């Protein structure tokens, strides 16, 4: 027993020592959503090491954060709009100390103080983007201009959808002329029926790196995030990003600090670091999504700021709809049909 106690003491001693090690920021983010360069520069400037952990869906991120709530596994996460409001309402987030944040006033006024987080007490916009159509013009003849075109039989086995329940249903609902944020069970059921007609054509779902099935030559047409399309075009110029007639799906991802974060200080520093116009511009140029930072937009290379895939013009955004929080009841209805859809019923 004495020896056991000794071992215990030793363990305590070891953990005590570890607090003197360099600081660590545990960043929980979408995969390929932050250039390595930025992380390295942050570490060089502040001495804080960044541990980058990834997720491929808001649902997975939420479940992990909620589950690890008490163990303070993450200091910073990047949920999409509707999850910001969900997590804020469930008291999972720590208020952001605006006195430690510089450059908030340079953010696009249209992208702050939204319904998801009025006053932006808990979230700071990181990037925004759209989910639209990808068309491999090398293999697809004829025009593809609308979501509806995916239902064309000539694309059998060549269609890819994102592995994202809300996005796929958003498309289904828009094709039927409903809002992509519908909470009406009947409309959701109709969207499910419409989508199940598409399923035989669907080769795969991917939200890990949605550009990959196009680059691998496995799929020719389907859904893609605009930044992924920009990245894909660097190696595959024939891949086009199309704003569908029914309206593109728009979203924004924001930094939030989980309530029990171990190192909120580092999280604030990181947000601050990213908000610098130069860094925001670098991120947008590197991964192809649009920065909400107006000061950064002026610094962008012309080839980036004129790229309609990253920075849509007004006509591109006709019919576009921002994703919103739809509440748990509607989410359950979506989840039920999503499962049916994916198991091929």
């Amino acid at each position: 027993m004495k020896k056991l106690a000794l071992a215990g003491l030793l363990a305590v001693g070891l953990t005590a020592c570890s607090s003197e090690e360099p600081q660590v920021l545990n960043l929980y983010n979408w995969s390929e959503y932050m250039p390595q360069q930025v992380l390295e520069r942050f570490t060089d400037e502040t001495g804080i090491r960044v541990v980058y952990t990834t997720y491929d869906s808001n649902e997975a991120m939420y479940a992990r954060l909620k589950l690890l709530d008490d163990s303070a596994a993450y200091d910073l996460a990047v949920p999409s709009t509707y999850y910001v409001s969900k997590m804020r309402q469930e008291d999972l987030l720590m208020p952001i100390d605006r006195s430690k944040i510089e450059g908030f006033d340079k953010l696009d006024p249209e992208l702050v103080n939204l319904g998801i987080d009025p006053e932006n007490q808990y979230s700071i916009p990181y990037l925004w983007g759209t989910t639209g159509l990808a068309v491999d013009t090398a293999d697809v003849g004829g025009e593809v201009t609308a979501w509806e075109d995916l239902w064309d039989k000539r694309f059998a086995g060549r269609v890819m959808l994102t592995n994202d329940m809300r996005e796929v249903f958003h498309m289904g609902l828009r094709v039927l002329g409903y809002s992509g944020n519908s909470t009406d069970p009947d409309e959701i059921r109709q969207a499910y029926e419409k989508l199940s007609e598409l399923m035989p054509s669907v080769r795969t779902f991917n939200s890990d790196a949605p550009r990959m099935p196009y680059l691998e030559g496995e799929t020719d047409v389907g859904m893609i995030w605009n930044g992924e399309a920009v990245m894909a075009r660097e190696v595959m110029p024939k891949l086009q990003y199309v704003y569908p007639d029914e309206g593109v799906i728009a979203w924004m991802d924001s930094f939030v600090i989980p309530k029990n974060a171990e190192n909120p200080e580092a999280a604030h520093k990181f947000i601050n670091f990213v908000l610098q116009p130069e860094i925001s511009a670098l991120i947008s140029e590197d991964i192809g999504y649009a920065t909400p930072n107006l000061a950064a937009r002026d610094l962008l290379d012309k080839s980036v700021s004129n790229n309609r895939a990253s920075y849509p013009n007004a006509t591109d955004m006709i019919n576009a709809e921002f994703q919103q929080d739809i509440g748990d009841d509607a989410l359950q209805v979506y989840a039920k049909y999503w499962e049916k859809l994916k198991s091929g019923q």
Partner: protein
Amino acid sequence: MRMASGLQQPFRNAVLILVWSWLLLLVLVPNLLVIAASVMTRDAGSFLSLPLTLDAYRQLLNPLYLEVFLQSLYMAVMTTLVCLLIGYPFAWSLSLMGPRARILLIFLLIVPFWTNSLVRTYALKLILATNGLLNQGLMNLGLINEPLRLLYTEGAVIIGLVYLLLPFMILPLYSVFEDLRKELLMASHDLGAGPLATFVHVIIPLTLPGILAGVMLVLLPAMGLFFVPDILGGSRNLLVGNVIKNQFLDARNWPFGAAASIFLTLAMAFLMFAHRLSKRRIGEEGA
């Protein structure tokens, strides 16, 4: 032994305590938690809540899940058959080789385990893709004109599962082949049996325990390796493991996810029970 036991007593106790606390903490408690979760009510805010209910098990009866289970079983059975067809001759020839070649081959069989299976599955993706290594190789050789559609199909999932699970088929088979005594084969030959008769009546029955052990080690994990269909599978190639993972991470229906994993555990227990029964029968026949 008795003389030494006085000295070894504390050591033995320590080992026993370690083993038991290991089993208690990492096997019994988690399983009890899963059982507890499966009889609770889904809760949007805190994952689980009271009252206790059997709803999750009732949900399992939904034909939707029966279909997923059957499809999953089909892919697992195919995987097992392919593993057996490759593993059996492999293990046999392994047992016939000289000690050096044998050690080298077993070493090569185990080396891939040093790399994370997820990474190896991604590597497989690069090989199977339309413009991947396999298709390019076949096209350069002039064997095919059009690239084969391999990735994101049921076939790709089975290839992935076979690749990951083959060693688990070979190793138990190898151990029974190693024990297979040459005298028995010679006796069979002397008594007038041809190669086929010897194979069917002598070799197969003697290696049956290895076959059964290999089948169990492949069939059951094959139903649970959710990341293989996630990476290699098409839009509809689901394993039971995918359903369980989706319930925990995406749909947040923990009771149902827990009930599904208990169902899988019971299926596993049932197979092990059947394995034991058949082993006893083989033992009796042998005697």
